[in-house]
Structure formats: C-alpha cells, structure tokens
C-alpha cells in the first residue's frame, strides 16, 4: 500500500496492481531511493539541459506545458496590468490633488473594500451579472467554440489580428474583459494607494512650489512636474505586481477556465505532480528575479539621482 504523495505512483499506470518488482525498477530508474540531495542534483542537471521532467497533470513534458500555457497567462496579466495602471494612476493622482475631499474619502474606502473582496467571488459575480444577467459578455474560456482561430503565436489577440477576421478579434477581446477586470481589481487598489501617497509627498516638495510661483497653470504643474516624480515608486509596485500576476493568477484562471499557468499549477499542486510543481516554482522564481531586475533598471532610468551598481 502506498500513501498519498508517493512519488512512485506517479510513474505507474495502475498503482494498486503494481508488483514489488515494478516498484523496485521505477525506484532505480528515477533514483527515488537515493538521498534528497542526490535526487536534486539529477533534477538540476536535467534542468540545465532543458529537461524538467514530465507533468502528470498535463501529460506533456514540463517545458512544453509551460510554453503552451504561458501566452494565455501573459496576455491576461498584461491586459490586467494595463487596466490597473490606467485606472490606478489616474485615480491616485486625483485623490492626492483633492486630498480629503469627498472623492478622496470614497476612493480610499473603495480601495479598502477592493482588497477585501475574494477574487474568485468577484469573478463569479461579474460572470453572473454580465453573462447570465445582461448577456453582454461570454463565459468561460479564452474564445468561443464557434470562432475559428489559426494559432500562430499563442497570443490570441495577436493571432486574431493576423487572421484578419474582425468577428474573431472581437470575440477574443470580449472573452478577455471579465477575467482581466477581476485580476486587475486588487492591483488597482494597491496602485491607487501607492500613487496617492507618493503624489502627496511630491506635492509638498519645493520644486512644485517653484513651478506654481512661476505662474504655471495647475494642470501643467501636476501633470508635468508632480506626477512624473510620483510615478517612480509606483513603477516599482507595477513591475512587481505584473511579475506576481504572471506567477499565478490561480483563482481567476480557475473561475474562468482560462487555460493558463495558474490553472495548471493549481492542478499540479493538488495532484502532487512533483515535476510540475518544481517546474512551476522554478519558473516563478525566474520571473520574480527578472521583474525585480527590470524594475531596478527602470528606476535608474527614471530617476537620474539613482546610479546603477
């Protein structure tokens, strides 16, 4: 009898009927009897040659699974970040400029509520309203069953433009709306907060006073001088949140049956698909390091006072 999480059963077609000899052969082949650090070395060596093992959840090698599912998650994370940034920066700026006004108070309350809402529930409520109720938007998935799309890049927006079919393009966009709003919700709240506090700091600075003393119209002062400087710490937050979204929009993808990395990783974790879990953790670590690097570089580019190295 083998317990749950037993690595041997991953390689067996029929774990109950396995003979002792079969189990033994598998243990030898996959080095399962050796100490952990030896097994890790085998895995690491394979990874450096491009082989991350086979994912039980998807039935494909891990590298293939990631290549197949990455575009879906990337598209969703990108659109969600664009939405969050657009809404967040505009709202945060206005909130800081009109500090303590009715707009500001209601924005702060809404932000607090926005981070208190469970993501999967929000997605379901949106689906209920816009799919079942108003019937404006489709659910679930990335594209309708009736639409025909010749997949080239894996990024459906790009592919539908390439195919030239307006109907397909609109269908893809419509499928993107609800999941990206759901995903963007929490990020928007964080960006609003960050933008508001950094904007408040900047508005008290002396160069803003100088700009006003020069007689510049208030809108120019805000847009050209204050906001640019307030954007710098916000860029950090945006970069990190994009990396985080890439790493796993697990709940959103599950709600909308979005065939991306988040859904796959959730299934891998629940099924104890070791190769899948390790591959996903490695991927997330790489994405995290990369996004931190990009954010650091952007920081150095935006703020001339910061020097690299």
């Amino acid at each position, binding site marked *: 009898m083998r317990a749950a999480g037993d690595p041997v059963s991953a390689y067996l077609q029929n774990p109950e009927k396995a003979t002792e000899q079969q189990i033994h052969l598998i243990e030898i082949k996959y080095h399962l009897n050796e100490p952990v650090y030896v097994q890790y070395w085998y895995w690491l060596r394979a990874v450096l040659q491009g082989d991350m093992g086979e994912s039980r959840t998807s039935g494909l090698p891990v590298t293939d699974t990631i290549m197949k599912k990455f575009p879906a998650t990337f598209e969703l994370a990108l659109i969600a970040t664009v939405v969050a940034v657009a809404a967040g920066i505009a709202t945060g700026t206005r909130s800081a400029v009109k500090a303590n006004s009715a707009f500001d108070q209601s924005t*702060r309350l809404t932000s607090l509520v926005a981070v208190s809402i*469970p993501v999967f529930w929000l997605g379901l409520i949106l689906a209920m309203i816009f799919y079942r109720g108003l019937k404006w938007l489709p659910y679930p998935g990335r594209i309708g069953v009736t639409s025909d799309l010749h997949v080239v890049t894996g990024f459906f927006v790009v592919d539908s433009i390439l195919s030239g079919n307006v109907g397909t393009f609109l269908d893809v966009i419509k499928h993107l709306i609800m999941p990206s709003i759901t995903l963007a919700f929490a990020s928007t709240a964080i960006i609003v907060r960050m933008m508001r506090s950094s904007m408040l700091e900047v508005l008290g600075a002396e160069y803003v006073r100088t700009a006003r003393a020069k007689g510049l119209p208030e809108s120019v002062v805000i847009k050209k001088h204050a906001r640019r400087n307030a954007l710098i710490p916000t860029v950090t937050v945006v970069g990190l949140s994009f990396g985080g979204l890439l790493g796993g929009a697990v709940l959103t993808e599950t709600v909308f049956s979005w065939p991306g990395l988040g859904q796959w990783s959730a299934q891998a*974790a629940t099924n104890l698909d070791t190769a899948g879990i390790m591959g996903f953790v490695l991927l997330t670590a790489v994405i995290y390091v990369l996004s931190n690097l990009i954010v650091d570089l952007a920081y150095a580019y935006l703020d001339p006072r910061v020097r690299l190295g």
Partner: protein
Amino acid sequence: MTSKLNIRKKGNGPQQARTVGGPPQAAKGKIAKGDFLSDIKLALKPRIREWKFDLHLMSKSLTSIMGMVLLVGLIIVAAFPFVFMPHNGRGDPFVIPIDLDKRDPLPPGTPGYPLGSGVDGKSILYGMIWGARISMVFAIEVVLAGVAIGTVLGLISGYKGGILDELIMRFTDIFLSIPSLILVMAIAAVLGRDLNSTKIALIAVWWSGYTRLVRGQVLSIRENTYIDAARASGSGELKIMFRHILPNSLAPVVVSGTMDMGTVVLVMAGLSYLGLGAPHGYAEWGVMIYDGQARFVYGDWWMILFPGIAILIFVLAFNLMGDGLRDVLDPKMRR
C-alpha cells in the same frame, strides 16, 4: 519623568525610585505579602491609560469605528452561533443540516430559508452564521501561531546577530521566496484535504513574514540607550529580550496581525474553493461558493452571493481595524 518613577506606597519603607513593575523592596531582600497585587495594578495603570488613549484616537476616525462595530458583531456571531441559528444537536454542528425532501435550491424568502438554500435543503444562513465561527477560530489559530513562531525567531535572530542571525534569515528567506499559494497547496495536498491540514500548511507559510518584521524592529531597538542601561544594571540577556525589546517591537506586529486575520480567511476560502480545505457540505464560505458555482447554469445566484458577502464583511472589518490601529500606533500621531 523621574517623578513618575518615585512611587510612594503605604506600608513601604523610605521612598524609592524604581522601574514600574519591578518588585518592591520593603526590607533588605524581603518581598512583603499583598504587594504583588498592588504591584500589578501599578504596572497596569500607565498601560491602561495608553489603551484608553488608543481607543479615544480610534474613535476619531469613522472608518475605525465602522471596523470596530463590524468586528464586535462578528465576534458575537462567531462566539454564539447557536443563538442565531440553533443546531438540532445531531452530529457535527459545522456540517450544514440537509433536508432530502428539498433537493433543488430554494430562493431567498422561502419560509424557513431567509437567505435561500443550496442543494438538499442546506440553509445558506446557517452556513453563513456557523461559517463565521469556523473562519474566526481558524484565523485566530493561524495568526497566533504564526506570530508566536515568527516573533521568537525574529527576536533571537535580531538580538543575537552573527551566524545565528544568518542561519535563521536564510531559512526564513526560503519560505518567503516560494510562491506562498503553491507551497500551501502542496503541503495541504500531502497532509490530506481537510481543514486541519490547511491550517498547518498556512501556519508553515505565514510565520516567515513576522520573523522579518520583528527582526527589523529588534535591530533598531537594540541600539537604544535603555538597552545598554538594562545591561549595565545587570539584567540577563533573556530578560532584556523579553522584557525590554519585545514589548517595544510589537506595534507593527499588531497591525500586521490584525490585517492578516482577514487575509488568512481570504486564502482559506480560496483554498476551499479550489478543493483543498473544508469538505463539501461544510459551513465554510469558500466551499459554499464552490457548490454555488456548480449551480451557476441554473441561475441560483444566492448560493454564490451571500457567502461572498460574509467573506467581504469579515475581511473588511479586520482591514478597517488594522488601518485604524496603524494610524493610532504611529508615534507621530500621538500627542
């Protein structure tokens, strides 16, 4: 401030300056009976005064008041669920009682089901009320355990420094660098798919945040002069750590812990929705939403809406409280 330290007590010997809370020395080496109780009262007085001031500051903000009201309401519902929704005494009260006569979900307003019912007559209101208790207990256990482990480790790491500090921080970094949701799911999947395993999995992931927080605080408090003074007056290391450094480093932990109560419930509901955590038919908000999604095609909206509102209220209460506490404990805003 010395006047506050010179405490005159009846029955005691000559007026002596001492730190609040230390043992009185009526005669050489002898501790008088009955002084212990009045001693505690003396120690508590300035602290109670500060807590009253905290409450006063919090009542100035509308959002904090809302948070406190919601929180008190939640605590009452969580502590006395049987008052609001009595259980018939058979079996586990956290399993929503079923009525096999009512196979299909009923909409809100049907007699006996004010918020509607799920499949097999499971009352949504029942699930919401008893779910409050499950969520509250779960969150308290996770946060307290995480705070306990994290604070002790952070304290040791920050105070001792050196190799021990490096070891502890690297160990903590391991837990911080793995995506927490995946780690929790993996641990919960190994331990078995029930609420207890999820609790252990969450604690295993949560403590690392507090370690880093406390260590940062300890590093800055350690440099204060009163720590040197305590050392000079002969206090042992353990006493310095727990008597001087720990109480002063707790402020961000309190704020973080309060807001984490809400986050824990969000994560727990998410996990239950994914299939880990509470089993089907349990009075737990995440699982109720999952069951509700199965009926999505039939348009039974109440199964999804109400448990989600419960989660929202719970998390919002703790977020508001945490926000208010953060403003209150910020030294720039006090007096």
